[in-house]
């Protein structure tokens, strides 16, 4: 880890925000190319070609992939033998703000007191950097490094996301069917297909949502588990297709994290119906 300075942390985090917001990961781009090769519907191909061209332009010009630049979510994986530099978390917070300023992120921080923020009646800050980051997730991992991942989360997928208990009757199929049904309903309405689904299955609403975030951080478009493949395949049978125009690819991939479970007749599922640029993620190691 070395003796990294406060300013170096800010710089590295800011760069991570910009990379997450402007760049497809290599596995994500490969998944789109595979999907384009499989599509026969000309309208579906038009959408996918547009998404790939948009990604190329965004990467080359360092422009946001989507104008809804999203809410920054940060996961820190702290190596058991690593030592946090002094003022690491304030530096991360500053780095996120600096990244939003450079991007520039959409200035959509809602200002005012509790009621004014809920009603949006006092308006928005004009500064990109005033979009506050979500609470940091901290994980214990092996090793002597600190790995920080930034995930930018836009609003459409939140509109079609859900976290709720399912009475599972101690059956895997019941949980699987619930995930597929939720996803079918959400995918039909989202408008930014093809989607990348992220699921967490946990003991509480908070834990399930945290697991879904973990799924977005670790999910790999190249390596899909049997559970992930089954969800993708079943939702793709709906034929919603890119942008809802019809086609084979409504879901590009599914990322699932199953956490510890409660001795009970219910499971808590959290779904993020990730849009066609999700997951906008990038990492830095200290």
């Amino acid at each position, binding site marked *: 880890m070395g003796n990294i300075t406060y300013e170096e942390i800010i710089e590295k985090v800011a760069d991570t925000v910009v990379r997450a917001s402007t760049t497809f990961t290599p596995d994500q781009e490969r998944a789109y190319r595979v999907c384009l090769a499989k599509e026969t519907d000309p309208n579906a191909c*038009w*959408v996918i070609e547009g998404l790939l061209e948009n990604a190329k332009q965004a990467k080359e010009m360092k422009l*946001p992939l989507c104008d*809804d630049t999203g809410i920054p979510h940060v996961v820190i994986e702290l190596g058991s033998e690593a030592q946090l530099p002094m003022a690491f978390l304030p530096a991360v917070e500053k780095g996120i703000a600096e990244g939003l300023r450079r991007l520039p992120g959409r200035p*959509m921080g809602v200002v005012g007191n509790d009621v004014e923020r809920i009603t949006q009646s006092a*308006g928005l800050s004009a500064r990109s950097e005033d979009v506050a980051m979500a609470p940091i997730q901290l994980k214990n991992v092996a090793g002597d490094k600190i790995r920080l991942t930034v995930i930018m989360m836009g609003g459409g997928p939140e509109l079609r996301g859900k976290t709720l208990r399912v009475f599972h009757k101690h059956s895997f199929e019941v949980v699987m069917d619930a995930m597929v049904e939720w996803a079918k309903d959400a995918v039909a309405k*989202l408008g*930014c297909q093809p989607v990348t689904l992220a699921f967490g299955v946990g003991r509480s609403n908070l834990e399930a949502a945290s697991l879904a975030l973990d799924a977005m951080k670790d999910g790999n478009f190249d390596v899909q588990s049997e559970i992930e493949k089954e969800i993708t395949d079943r939702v793709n049978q709906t*034929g919603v297709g890119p942008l*809802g125009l019809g086609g084979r690819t409504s879901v590009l991939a599914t990322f699932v994290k199953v956490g510890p479970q409660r001795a009970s007749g219910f499971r808590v599922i959290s779904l993020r119906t990730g849009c066609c640029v999700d997951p906008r993620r990038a990492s830095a190691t200290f």
Partner: protein
Amino acid sequence: MDITTPVSPEQIHSLKIYDKIRITGNIYAGRDAVLPKIVKLYEENRLTEKGLTLQGAVVFHTAVSVAGIGPTSSNKLEIESSILPLSEAGVKIHLGKGSLSRQTVEALKKNGAIFAVTPPISALLTAKMRKQRVAAFPEEGIEAFYELEVVEFPAIVAIAHGRSIFEKSEA
């Protein structure tokens, strides 16, 4: 098909679902916060007070900011509920993304308007915008009612003349 604003009833009549269009000219942009205010102006017959002409207009459901432009979900309550009154006011093309209800499909048909969708390809769409100005309600910031000048803005017709591309997948 190339469409130049203001859009004529004849152009709308000739379009059908799945048609690809490219829009050139001045279009309006608005979303959740401002569209209900535009509807209110129309209902109170005060659009001209603000210098707004909605006859033959295109309304793009987007914010306008330093991060660019791109479609937001048109099925959000405040946006979808603006489609009927704004079509009555003369808007011919509502541009956004996401499926809309049968009620909205009928409202569009009754008023000779259509709904078109465009992918959230903000880096490309923003490059097609030549000018922008706030047309009304500047206090809404990125959600103000904007007038944009666009060139060959790409979209696909999703709802027209009572038919919707979304209804097969929601059946």
